[in-house]
């Protein structure tokens, strides 16, 4: 970038001045553009950050004080740290793995094209895609559909999800969800509510009185007459039995006997009741169906968005790294192979160290990219968890334009963001210099 040409040292004073003037003339448009588009906005932001929301009152460093005491901004800073710590490393690693693997497979180009494809989609569209992928409802969210399918393969769905005893109806519901008849007589009625009449199995018959006789007998029935009416807890006409409910006879903590209700809801145990026995319907009968993982909840939201980010950027990393890989000298690898090194050893001790400059470029590009992450977070995170997912760039937009309209605080945030990016930028510039020399 030096304005001084190699010969200028020997040139006369007038020529030097002329050279300088000419050089300045050529540089001027670039300087003007840079000044108007980069330097002036930065300067203005710094100045604006010292004023209040209206822009008329000078408040000194108050905005910075607010930024560091505001809970939402601190969350944003924390999330930015998570992003920088996790996303660039993962993108580089995934890119490296893909690049090395594609060297060895036959349909390399097709594979590369496929992995690179997400780069062709706008972030907005990608965000909308992933918002749907992560949706909690298994009927919409692909990820939860898979989770539920896997879960239900290994676990049976409960017969009556959500069924429960009427509050104050005489049945106890333990912490774990087991429903217990408190006293143990020879005949027990187990009335339940909370089952839609349409959700009853086709085999369900009108509930019958327990048969009585030896042992313990009882009836599990739906204590609700369609359209209302009837007496709670009693076996009125029109109430249906609940077939297929697992019922246990317990004595203290020990299960004495287990049976399943018949089509009319009746069941029977052979063992005679004692003072300590009770009839229990285990919680598994009424467990709510498995709904998968709450990806977009406060706990998983940032990892979920990072996942989407990796999906988009892994292809880019792969292409750059594959480029570097193609330029690597083969001799060292072949020498290592002759010396009897395994593939893993070659990858770890030769390929990766030789690729280090390329990996560095990808990593640092990703770090800068991640620091200003905005669109994915804005689109994927639903309203209730927007603050939990917040990052600095999003916070600065919301504070300035998204309702608060406090462009003073927004400018302060933008200056903070700039200060965070500058060291990485300097590092990058230094690397460029180093690689050119």
């Amino acid at each position, binding site marked *: 970038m030096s304005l001084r040409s190699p010969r200028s040292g020997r040139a006369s004073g007038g020529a030097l001045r002329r050279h300088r003037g000419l050089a300045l003339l050529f540089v001027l448009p670039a300087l003007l553009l840079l000044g108007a588009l980069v330097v002036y906005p930065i300067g203005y932001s710094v100045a604006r950050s010292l004023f209040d929301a209206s822009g008329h009152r000078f408040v000194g460093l108050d905005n910075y004080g607010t930024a560091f005491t505001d809970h939402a901004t601190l969350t944003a800073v924390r999330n930015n740290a998570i992003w920088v710590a996790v996303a660039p490393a993962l993108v580089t690693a995934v890119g490296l793995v893909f690049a090395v693997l594609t060297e060895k497979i036959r349909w390399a180009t097709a594979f590369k094209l496929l992995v690179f494809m997400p780069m062709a989609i706008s972030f907005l569209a990608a965000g909308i895609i992933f918002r749907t992928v992560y949706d909690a409802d298994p009927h919409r969210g692909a990820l939860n559909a898979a989770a539920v399918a896997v879960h239900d393969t290994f676990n049976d769905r409960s017969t009556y999800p959500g069924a429960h005893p009427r509050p104050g109806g005489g049945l106890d519901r333990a912490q774990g969800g087991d429903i217990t008849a408190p006293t143990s007589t020879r005949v027990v009625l187990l009335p339940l509510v909370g089952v839609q009449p349409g959700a009853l199995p086709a085999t369900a018959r009108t509930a019958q009185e327990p048969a009585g006789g030896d042992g313990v007998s009882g009836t599990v029935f739906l204590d609700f007459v369609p359209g209302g009416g009837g007496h709670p807890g009693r076996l009125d006409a029109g109430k249906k039995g609940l077939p297929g409910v697992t019922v246990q006879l317990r004595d203290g903590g020990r299960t004495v006997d287990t049976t399943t209700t018949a089509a009319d809801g009746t069941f029977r145990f052979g063992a005679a009741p004692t003072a300590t026995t009770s009839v229990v319907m285990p919680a598994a009968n009424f467990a709510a169906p498995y709904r998968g993982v709450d990806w977009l909840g406060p706990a998983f939201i940032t990892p979920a968005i990072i996942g989407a980010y990796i999906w988009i950027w892994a292809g880019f990393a792969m292409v750059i790294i594959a480029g570097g890989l193609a330029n690597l000298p083969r001799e060292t690898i072949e020498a290592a192979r002759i010396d009897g090194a395994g593939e893993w050893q070659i990858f770890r001790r030769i390929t990766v160290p030789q690729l280090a400059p390329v990996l560095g470029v990808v990593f640092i590009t990703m770090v800068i990219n991640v620091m200003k992450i905005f669109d994915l977070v804005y689109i994927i995170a*639903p*309203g209730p968890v927007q603050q939990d997912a917040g990052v600095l760039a999003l916070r600065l937009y919301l504070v300035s334009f998204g309702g608060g309209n406090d462009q003073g605080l927004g400018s302060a945030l933008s200056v903070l963001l700039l200060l965070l990016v500058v060291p990485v930028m300097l590092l990058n510039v230094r690397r460029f210099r180093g690689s050119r020399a």
Partner: protein
Amino acid sequence: MRLRSALPTLTACVLLAATATACGSGGGGTAADSATQELKGQTLTIAAVWSGTEQENFKKVLDAFTAKTGAAVSYTSTGDNLSTVVGSKIEGGDPMDVVMVAQPGVIKQFAGKGWLAPLSSAVTDAAKKDYAGIWSSLGTVNGTQYGLYFKAADKSTVWYSPTAFQNAGVQPPATFDDLLKASRTLSDSGTPAFSVAGQAGWTLTDWFENVYLSQAGPELYDKLTRHEIPWTDPSVLKALTTLGKVFDDKQLVAGGGQGALQTDFPTSVQEVFGAQPKAAMTYEGDFVGGVIASELKKQVGTDAKVFPFPAVDGGKAPVMGAGDAAVVLKGAKHPEAAQKFVEFLSGPEAATVWAKAGGFISPNKAVDPSVYPDDTTRQFAKSVIDAGDAFRFDMSDQAPAAFGGTAGQGEWKDLQDFLADPSDVQGAAARLEADAAKAYKG
């Protein structure tokens, strides 16, 4: 800054003077025309947020005005950024004549900037005669009436599925306690009582406002609206506790609090009136009817019915809602015609035109209820008119946007946190107060 804000006014004055002379010279020859065509040759410009069906129906009103007065009318839909569009038009020296504004806060903001012309006495007199005082006061800033509310919305409406009610054998309740009782019976019948659209924060603010308005009364409601009492006030704690009776009961809210937080507004309507009902009721304003009719293709009045939000703790049943007011801009090129237009809107004639087309209720007492196309709309109009001065405008719409109108922060976020953990009433109130203090200060 001072110079910049003075400029448009100056420009407007010059324009105004120019138009006045133009009118004066042109009017001489046509003075003999019939009185009904007195505004012939003038083109009024009118802006509103309405698009689609609403725009079409509003145009019918504009056509009626043209037929009556001879003035041509050009309508612009501003989209959601009404303030920005109006502001840039004024700065550019080309203001519209009449703008339809929704929130009283925006009328206040416009008036504060000196953008609005006071309404003519013909309009204010009509408003006094046929409107409840509350509507005039919503359009009044510092004693001068700038806005005339032409369209009203009722947000104290609970929508229910008659099938689910019939199935459970319950009737629409009139008090909040009855509502809880009916809700438990519904949940016993196997259908959770409510689908709550917790992913959209504004539905939660509306829930709170209805409970608060009925329980604490209109005076405290107004004070809280202006943030003259803190959100940690005992009345707020009480309302949150009452609201928690619904939100905290897993049997009453479909999917529980967590499920509700993942439900957006269209889904909450679908969960009640869709193909596979998951709940018996959903609470939101009269516009739910539009979603039911257009997206779910169900018949409002038979497949979906409405009862007014019930009275809480012996208070009066709340009538809370919103509306759209007409304001005349100060730099209007046809100030006289603009006032005439607002006068036209204030009368029952204009309201009748839109009312017949549907999706409209008028705050004007003189509008004949029989013009509404169906019983449900008539019911809304009746409750707004009957409420009279007890009607209250949506509180969150009157709060600073950072508190009452932004996704993911302020009241929306705090009430969503409350929905996630309704047992923490104190904490929720403290967070609401902290956010309100910040937003009202700025």
